[in-house]
């Protein structure tokens, strides 16, 4: 009875809803004016704080690293405690190329780092992504520590725990020298981040990106639909690994050294926290989170290192218990912006 009386209303509303949905889908990936904001801020920072550009380039590198994690955590729903593995592989590839093989050209160094990290991503992803839950957490954590131990086993090659000093790349594109204030490094990192961000953006709005979201939301259904779930996950993992590898390579090139500390659990946990602070699954979480994290670190460490650690722990607990329950507000806000335009 009630269904009968409702039916005409539903039927009338249907074309409208359909059209709205179609419009939403067609416009979802379009660039919005507000998306220029992070890049304008990054450029403005270059002119406002010219003497803080070393810190600035570290922030850009962390944004890139967090962005790579967002691809697998936010979009594919893979929870890993070992993302630092790929950052470390990238850093060591770049460092070893320069110091052991005298291959000092920086951009091909990045590409080599991306390739090595991607290969590691395919291999480890192919094996590890069959697992979920506790097993996956423990496996990702263990393999990262194993890499660190391997690095320590061949100190002649990797420098052991002392690491590799003197990672000094040749001038960028053969003409831009690196200055003391890190201006060149900052612009270099900014351009790399810009290119990779749009690559990531392209990926998440592609059918492949949608398939990842499907896997995140309902694996069983994606299997039932015939989606090659495992290969989709491995591909996403390898792409994220390559981007993390590039972040690691930039880290090695701009800091001038690499140590086995790049594989620390704290680094895997740190990038996870950055992403959580900024919100997962909307790409801009990496920007907000990494900057917020570094500002907090900067301010609270000035009081004392314990104060920073305690504050970070407190923020995490509060974020999980108070904010993540109803979800981040700015993610919701963003969705509304996307839906409206």
């Amino acid at each position, binding site marked *: 009875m009630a269904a009968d009386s409702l039916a005409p209303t539903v039927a009338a509303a249907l074309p409208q809803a359909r059209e709205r949905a179609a419009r939403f889908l067609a416009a979802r990936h379009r660039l919005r004016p507000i998306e220029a904001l992070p890049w304008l801020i990054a450029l403005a920072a270059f002119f406002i704080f010219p003497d803080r550009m070393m810190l600035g380039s570290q922030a850009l590198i962390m944004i890139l690293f967090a962005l790579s994690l967002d691809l697998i*955590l936010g979009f594919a729903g893979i929870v890993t405690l070992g993302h630092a593995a790929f950052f470390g592989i990238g850093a060591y590839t770049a460092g070893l190329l320069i110091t052991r093989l005298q291959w000092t050209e920086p951009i091909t160094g990045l590409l080599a780092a991306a390739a090595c990290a991607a290969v590691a991503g395919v291999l480890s992803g192919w094996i590890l992504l069959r697992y979920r839950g506790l097993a996956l957490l423990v*496996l990702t954590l263990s*393999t990262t520590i194993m890499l660190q131990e391997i690095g320590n086993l061949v100190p002649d090659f990797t420098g052991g725990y002392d690491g590799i000093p003197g990672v000094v790349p040749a001038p960028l594109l053969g003409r831009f020298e690196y200055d003391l204030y890190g201006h060149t490094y900052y612009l270099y990192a900014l351009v790399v981040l810009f290119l990779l961000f749009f690559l990531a953006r392209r990926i998440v709005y592609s059918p492949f990106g949608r398939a990842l979201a499907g896997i995140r939301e309902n694996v069983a259904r994606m299997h039932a639909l015939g989606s090659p779930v495992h290969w989709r996950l491995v591909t996403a993992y390898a792409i994220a690994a390559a981007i993390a590898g590039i972040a690691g390579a930039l880290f090695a090139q701009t800091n001038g050294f690499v140590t086995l500390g790049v594989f620390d659990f704290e680094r895997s946990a740190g990038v996870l926290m950055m992403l959580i602070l900024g919100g997962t699954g909307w790409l801009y979480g990496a920007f907000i989170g990494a900057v917020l994290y570094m500002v907090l670190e900067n301010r609270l460490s000035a009081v004392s290192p*314990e104060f920073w650690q*305690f504050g970070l*722990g407190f923020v995490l607990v509060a974020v999980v218990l108070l904010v993540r329950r109803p979800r981040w507000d700015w993610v919701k806000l963003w969705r509304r912006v996307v839906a409206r335009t």
Partner: protein
Amino acid sequence: MANTAISILFDGVAYAMFLFIVSVGLSVTMGLMGFVNLAHGAFAMAGGYLVVTATQSFGVPFPLALVIAAVAIGAVSILFERTLYAGLYGASELDQVLMTIGLTFMVIAAITYFYGPLPEHVRMPDYLTGEINLGFRSFPTYRVFIIVIGAVLVAVLWYGFERTSLGAKIRAAVDNHRMAQSIGIDVARLFRISFALGSGLAALGGGLAIQLFGLTPSFAILYLVFFLLVVAVGGSGTLWGTLIAALVLGICDTAGKYLYADAGGFFIYAVAVAILLIKPAGLYGRG
């Protein structure tokens, strides 16, 4: 040769008992609620520091200090469970991981603030130092002490798990959470009890660890990895799985460090990863 083998076995078992004592609570709570509690290492460490304070500042004898630490941390953990953990049952694994990492950081920071980053030691009573002669050769008394405590706990926990109604309920709830609930078992209450007991045991383990490894604030994260390995390899929620996993990993790790000092740290991970690749739910786990 035989002597080395005996040393490896002995030290390995002592290490395994430490791993078992700390990990068993983590395993049961993980099995009951699927709760990924990364703050377990922090509870163990807090227990260790309580033992340090009790023995150094108040002159409490070491064995009594262990008991006090276990009871105190067990009691405090109930408070945490009610305020922080209760809201996250059934939440995503990511939320549980994040919240407990956050809690761990807070504990580490608080302990670094009060105790400083340098390793802490405790003064052992005379009867726990030196060596003890078991007829064919002598062993460090303190490690014998750990093995005895471990063996007693295995017996007590075996009785509790297999012969009491509480243990039967826990086993039922680990096997099938929803079914257990539908026949009237209060799984949340079981979780609270085992959480408090497990945290108390972790604190005891933390106290025992001081003399073995020295205690620094990095203990909470450094050893957490090993506790997680034990739980994952054993299969969460299983007593025997945790014991076997602790023995396998403890002995492998010790053997690795004895025989190949350089590659020492590598073995425990290689063994654990190999086992997990073959049996993702752990040796005794289901599914």
